């Protein structure tokens, strides 16, 4: 079999200087391999090393020896043994940590993060994925897309890797069947697109036999795509951040003498030139880049991820941890965030406990809230959680003791990624990805108004309130609320119906159906309802609003007696039979996910003002009950 060493060895032998010149211009690709022991992951990496001739004769001799004593290929050369590193792992026959491997071809140098695939090693995989440009997801052709495949893909997506190679491995064991590969490809794409992975290249391989790893296999004449290495050599590796606005966390303030004051760091985004205006964060001061200083001389331009030293034209105050950014496109500064957190500590997360948080070149004190939810890494289902244990992933609110500059992780990994350090053990116990700032109210002040709620309601001759209809889809919320509003209107009451479907066309059209988006949906509707109460209106809200905590939060914002929680309740079988929007039918057909009551949670009210069992009540009867309740509470008295 031809190898890369063979291909280039002639040039090495005949003209080493020409060879070296060629190799100076290689680019770098970092990738992660995801799969379990059984998928042939170690064998695949072993083959890449072996065939790109990164294995020397003495290592090969050791490999032959090890293959006989502890190999799994019946004494045949076991390539997996090349990469199974620690002695303990060799004995157990599993990989338990992240190992980094290196090989290069004429076009590229590669750094491979080799991580274990089991659920209990989620933190290791997340670690390996954090620096990868691309992920190879291995699937055993005989077994297809499995739970672990989904888990690995979810983690890859979570860490912001967009390029995926689906290696359908052990293709020799299914007689090189095109149909098998096409089925796995279709299954995988159907799932992957749902988690935002769309740049997928599927390659049928046999790591054991070498098919389509380096050389095109004669066994798969129906496959006309690239070989695995062929693809890895050409896939773009340019860091996304190179194209964004300029960002550089200051790692080191260089003051060798009184005349020089430079700010050293690794560019985390975009590029910079002398003369560029930069904003210093968090202070917000603006200055201009004077020079880009390196030991090799001044630069006309520098780009991510170069390490440089900048001097500025003004004598401004800059410290380690500050961020220099494009003046007209600077990151936000905030001290409270919503973040996805991966817990890596043996001891579980203690919400409210002060931890250290490192982001960019800055370490601050941070507390994490009780998780809004955690995510089942196998099903991606969002589950309620009080804490996060080792390897669990959840969404938390992170509060810092001071404001820091940041970009959302999806925009810039360096300005949006952070680690959590335990103050007592000094261990790294978590890692997280900032999603967005939670708007602090420090700099926002109330403007007093003279015409208040009591004036508004007096004019209308009614007590304003919110009647909040909650329940699963098709339980009857809108139908009942509509009737209630018609009858109040007929009585000359000033009302407004805030419909959950309608607000998603305008006010909340940027929100989807994930848990945090639902939380935000409820919060916004609650805010609007409160404003309308201030305006003196009787506000009817129809919103699935599945979370108890968010409904209670709306109640807490209103005055006592202004919030009427109406639990519109019907058995699943009844709502599925009604199904006017076809939602349950789609859910059953697998066309819709996240349907409340089916595969998304609904937290029923514990003490609602009204509990309407709509399987037993007509809409008219139900609306009667609502009106009687409002009357009894004195809402309609004035």
């Amino acid at each position, binding site marked *: 079999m031809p190898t890369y060493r063979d291909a280039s060895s002639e040039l090495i032998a005949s003209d080493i200087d020409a060879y070296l010149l060629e190799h100076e211009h290689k680019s770098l690709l970092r990738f992660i391999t995801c799969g379990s022991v059984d998928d042939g992951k170690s064998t695949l990496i072993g083959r890449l090393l072996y065939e790109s001739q990164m294995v020397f004769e003495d290592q090969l001799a050791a490999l032959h020896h090890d293959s006989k004593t502890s190999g799994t290929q019946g004494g045949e050369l076991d390539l997996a043994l090349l990469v199974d590193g620690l002695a303990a792992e060799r004995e157990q026959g599993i990989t338990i940590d992240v190992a*980094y491997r290196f090989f290069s071809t004429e076009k590229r140098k590669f750094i491979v993060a080799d991580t274990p695939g089991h659920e209990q090693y989620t933190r290791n995989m997340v670690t390996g994925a954090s620096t990868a440009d691309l992920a190879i997801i291995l699937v055993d052709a005989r077994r297809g897309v499995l739970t672990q495949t989904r888990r690995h893909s979810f983690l890859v997506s979570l860490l912001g890797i967009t390029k995926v190679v689906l290696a359908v491995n052990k293709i020799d064991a299914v007689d090189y069947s095109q149909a098998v590969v096409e089925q796995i490809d279709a299954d995988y794409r159907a799932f992957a697109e749902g988690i935002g992975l769309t740049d997928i290249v599927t390659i049928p391989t046999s790591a054991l036999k070498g098919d389509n790893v380096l050389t095109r296999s004669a066994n798969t004449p129906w496959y006309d795509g690239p070989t695995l290495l062929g693809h890895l050599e050409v896939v773009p590796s340019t860091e996304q951040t190179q194209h964004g606005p300029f960002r550089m966390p200051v790692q080191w303030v260089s003051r060798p003498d009184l005349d020089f004051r430079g700010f050293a760091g690794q560019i985390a985004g975009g590029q910079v030139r002398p003369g560029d205006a930069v904003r210093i964060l968090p202070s917000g001061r603006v200055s201009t880049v004077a020079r880009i200083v390196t030991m090799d001389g001044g630069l006309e331009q520098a780009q991510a991820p170069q390490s440089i030293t900048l001097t500025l034209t003004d004598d401004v105050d800059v410290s380690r941890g500050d961020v220099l950014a494009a003046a007209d496109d600077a990151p936000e500064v905030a001290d409270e965030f919503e973040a996805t957190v991966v817990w890596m500590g043996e001891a579980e997360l203690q919400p409210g406990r002060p931890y250290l948080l490192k982001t960019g070149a800055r370490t601050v004190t941070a507390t994490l809230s009780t998780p809004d939810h955690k995510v089942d890494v196998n099903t991606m289902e969002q589950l309620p959680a009080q804490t996060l244990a080792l390897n669990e992933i959840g969404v938390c609110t992170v509060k810092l003791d001071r404001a820091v500059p940041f970009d959302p992780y999806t925009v810039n990994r360096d300005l949006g990624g952070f680690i959590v350090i335990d103050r007592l053990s000094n261990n790294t116990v978590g890692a997280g990805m900032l999603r967005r700032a939670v708007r602090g109210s420090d700099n926002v002040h109330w403007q007093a108004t003279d015409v208040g709620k009591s004036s508004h309601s007096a004019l209308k001759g009614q007590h304003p309130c919110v009647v909040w209809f909650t329940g699963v889809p098709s339980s009857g919320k809108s139908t009942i609320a509509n009737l209630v509003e018609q009858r109040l209107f007929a009585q000359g009451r000033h009302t407004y119906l805030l419909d959950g479907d309608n607000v998603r066309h305008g006010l909340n059209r940027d929100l989807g159906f994930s848990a945090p988006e639902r939380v935000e949906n409820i919060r916004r509707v609650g805010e609007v309802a409160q404003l309308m109460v201030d305006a003196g209106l009787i506000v009817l809200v129809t919103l699935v609003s599945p979370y108890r905590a968010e409904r209670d939060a709306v109640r807490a914002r209103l005055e006592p007696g202004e919030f009427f929680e109406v639990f519109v309740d019907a058995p699943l079988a009844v709502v599925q039979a009604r199904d006017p929007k076809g939602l349950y039918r789609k859910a059953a057909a697998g066309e819709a996910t996240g349907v409340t009551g089916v595969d998304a949670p609904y937290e029923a009210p514990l003490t609602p003002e009204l509990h309407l069992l709509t399987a037993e009540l007509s809409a008219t009867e139900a609306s009667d009950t609502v009106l009687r309740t409002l009357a009894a509470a004195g809402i309609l008295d004035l």
Partner: protein
Amino acid sequence: MTTLTHLQRLEAESISILRDAVSESQKPVMMYSIGKDSAVMLHLAQKAFFPGALPFPLLHVDTTWKFQDMYTLRNKKAAEIGADLIVHKNPEAVRLGINPFDHGSAVHTDIWKTEGLKQALEAGGFDLAFGGARRDEEKSRAKERIFSVRSKEHRWDPKQQRPELWRLYNARVHPGESIRCFPLSNWTELDIWQYISQQGIEIVPLYFAAERPVVDRDGTLIMVDDARFRFLPGEQPMTRKVRFRTLGCYPLSGAIESEADTLSGVIQEMLLATTSERQGRLIDHDSRASMEKKKQEGYF
């Protein structure tokens, strides 16, 4: 905008690691072994803190048995860049006259290097030490972190390694514990050679082939570097054109016969070679998992 080459990206990463480590530690030090990896690491450190001087001293844990060429370059380089050079020789080893001829490679390495290093780090109160190790050198190194925590006893526990994500390194330690920081983790031997060539970094001449006096010990060529060499009965030094792929204590470093007397010649030989770098290092052959064992005991 251009795509950075792999060497540019490696350089940027190493410089970033060096700056972060210095910022996050109280008293850092750089291990300086005078080999080619050390030379590259020192060069990167100069770049990281330019135009300033190195914000840490260099530490050479001396065994007194290094090649004379190494001592020459060490002193020259330190003077040239104005570095604060600490040379530590284990006084116990000096007193006992530990040497590879009488005591064997294992005892020699343990007392001079492993024990000597611990003494030097403790004496200096260093909480972070840079080392030039690379992950591609050996299998157990592949899992080494860039920032590796060592206990008060300088032990490395593979089960207590901290997760290392993105470019966020955790250098926090308790009093007495320390960090070994490896800025060259992601470099390969070829990267090192290419960078030396590209940057014109000065290395010990022993890496280039020249006529040198050697003896053949069971197929390993050992250079007769000074008068302390112990000949076996009847043994005579012979002149061979040799060079070294790795440098350590001269009685423990195997030379290879070679015609490569230029950098490109050395790289050419390396690329066409069929044995891995560490085979010339005699200490690795004790047992299959020996490096892992040495690391647990505190060897760099």
